[in-house]
């Protein structure tokens, strides 16, 4: 038997796990071999020292520890997100309310902007007549717009054609409107209308409209 095997048996003897027959044989061997007996004594001393360590744990206020765990969980429960159905309902409501509020605010801003002339005071301004069909890939759209010189009354109606391209071959081609306004599609499905400049890059941008929204 290898020395390590004997030591493993000593460890098992220490734990009372060696089968009776093997334990008896090992005890006989211990009685006959002082060096082996000394090894076993060391194992016993070590185990006793380990066992004593359990008694040396510093005092702990167990109730305080329990309270602090409880407090964290309660705090987390207060912050816990609502369950999915409620979240969904609230999300839909908040989205609807937000959209409505945004429309109102945008409407007021646009109205104020047109009434005051905004940055385009005294310059040609474009408003859009939302009378265009839904966009379809490859289709040619007729975009009807109304050109006006704010704050003067609105005037002539003109038509702008723009062809919707696929995303890959798309190349915006601004169309010049009457009164120094420009209209172009920035990406398929949108129309941007600018006014008040000699070129599209200089023009003020009254806004853009996704064709799906129109």
């Amino acid at each position, binding site marked *: 038997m290898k020395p390590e095997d004997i030591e493993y048996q000593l460890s098992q003897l220490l734990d009372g796990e060696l089968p009776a027959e093997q334990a008896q044989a090992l005890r006989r061997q211990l009685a006959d071999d002082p060096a082996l007996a000394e*090894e076993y004594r060391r194992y016993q001393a070590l185990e006793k020292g*380990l066992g004593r360590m359990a008694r040396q744990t510093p005092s702990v206020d167990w109730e305080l520890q*329990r309270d602090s765990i409880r407090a964290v969980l309660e705090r987390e429960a207060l912050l816990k997100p609502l369950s999915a159905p409620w979240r969904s309902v609230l999300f839909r409501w908040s989205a609807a309310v937000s959209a409505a509020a945004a429309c109102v605010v945008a409407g007021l801003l646009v109205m104020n902007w047109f009434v005051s002339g905004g940055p385009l005071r005294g310059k040609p301004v474009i408003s859009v007549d939302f009378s265009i069909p839904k966009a379809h890939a490859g289709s040619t759209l007729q975009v009807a717009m109304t050109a006006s010189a704010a704050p003067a009354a609105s005037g002539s109606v003109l038509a702008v054609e723009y062809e919707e391209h696929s995303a890959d071959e798309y190349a915006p081609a601004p169309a010049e409107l009457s009164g120094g306004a420009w209209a172009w599609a920035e990406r398929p499905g949108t129309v941007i209308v600018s006014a008040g400049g000699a070129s599209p890059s200089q023009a003020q941008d009254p806004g853009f409209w996704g064709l799906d929204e129109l």
Partner: protein
Amino acid sequence: MTDETSDRMAASDGVLAAAAAGGDRLAFDALVGRHQRRATQLAYRLLGNMDDALEVTQDSFLRAYRRLASLSAPEKFQAWLLRIVSNQALNYRRGRALRKSSSLDAPGGGEQEDGRGELNLPDPSAPAPVQEASAKELQRQIQSALADLPEKQRLALVMFSIQKMPQKEVAQALDMSVEAVKWHVFTARKKLKDKLKDYL
């Protein structure tokens, strides 16, 4: 004590863990009360510092609560918790320089293994004063040597020889066979015996 509270105290770990997974925080609180001592003592033995051990234990319980839904066998809550404590303690050791340990000779410290007492109760096998000093020195040396053991050996020895956990529970907590636990305990003992031969 209310009937509800006594029901929880009598309930098995499996029942409590399943209830806690369903959001019953009182059930989880009962689990904390039941396992906090063993979890804290394990963390303390792995870290050698009670402040760190308390932090790790609290983190472990919180982590356990958040992950209860992933516990496939609620009746094995203790083993699962101790595995979390072990991993957290080992991560803690790796991640931060430990504060100087003041635990082993902390004044007034000490309690029984089951943690019920706050006093340093007399050990029936306590040695005489002269031997007491050498016994404390031995424990200091053991604590130091434990830190140098490979993780699995240290965990197995701490749980089995210090925490006095049955080998089967150690095996569950460490996710290994009972035979592997025996081998790790033996290997750890042998290393400590050889390293501490001047103190044994």
